[in-house]
């Protein structure tokens, strides 16, 4: 990996069914991810994705290319909620670019958007760049 390397763009559609599956798989049953009335009571326009679901699926932009074993760290700020429409869901678009490589660790910046909104801020993945080991 070299600075400036770009990973293939990831486009992922989130559905409300997927939010229910994530609630069960993760154990986060907060109702703002399941029911419009609960989301609206919390001041949101409607059901929103779990921040951790958006974080998890955005990482695929990197792991689809290098696998999960080499991921050393991953950090994000939950900047804006991803509102998931009952009929159309929501599309999340992830672009990932290598920013630096030092000490066998590549730093990859993720740009994670839903429509015009940047939904994750300062999203950064470090990848063990042990070329030759694989």
């Amino acid at each position, binding site marked *: 990996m070299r600075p400036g390397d770009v990973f293939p763009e990831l486009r992922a559609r989130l559905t409300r069914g997927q939010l229910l599956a994530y609630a*069960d*798989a*993760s154990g986060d049953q907060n109702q703002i991810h399941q029911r419009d009335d609960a989301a609206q009571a919390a001041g949101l326009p409607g059901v929103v994705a779990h921040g*951790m679901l958006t974080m998890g699926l955005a990482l695929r932009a990197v792991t689809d290319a290098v696998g*999960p074993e080499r991921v050393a760290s991953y950090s994000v700020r939950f900047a804006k909620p991803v509102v998931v429409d009952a009929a159309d869901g929501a599309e999340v678009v992830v672009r990932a670019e290598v920013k630096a490589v030092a000490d066998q660790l590549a730093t990859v910046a993720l740009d994670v958007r839903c429509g015009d909104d940047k939904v994750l801020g300062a999203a950064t993945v470090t990848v063990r760049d042990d070329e030759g080991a694989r």
Partner: protein
Amino acid sequence: MPISAEHAGRAYPATEPLAVTAAGIAAFARALGDDNPAYAGPEPVAPPTFAVVLAQRAWQQLFDDPELGLSLDGTIHADQRFAWSRPLSAGESVRARARIEKVRLRPPTALVTVAVDIATSDGEAVCQSVSTLMTRVAP
């Protein structure tokens, strides 16, 4: 007494061990819409962010701590960082230990930094989670 800067350093006991199973890994990967072959087959590893399942169990101890007065409804996950020494695998048993690192009071909210160490039942550290939780406090 509600949460305050004096709670920094408070540590909670390790959670009960969680058995990482192939079925649990598959369900988590499916919910992410992730069909990476590493998460299937006879010896699957867990998607990196599967660590949140453990972190969440550890965070629950803060919400159950009557001294802090936190409510899940009044709390937002503001940021999250994970660092892994290796992936979790099916067949392992892991526990999580939470510690309050820092509390910044900005009434009507407080920013609570929580670190969670995830280790195998044998004591091998595999992942650290650091989160900022933004929670409502009385002004």
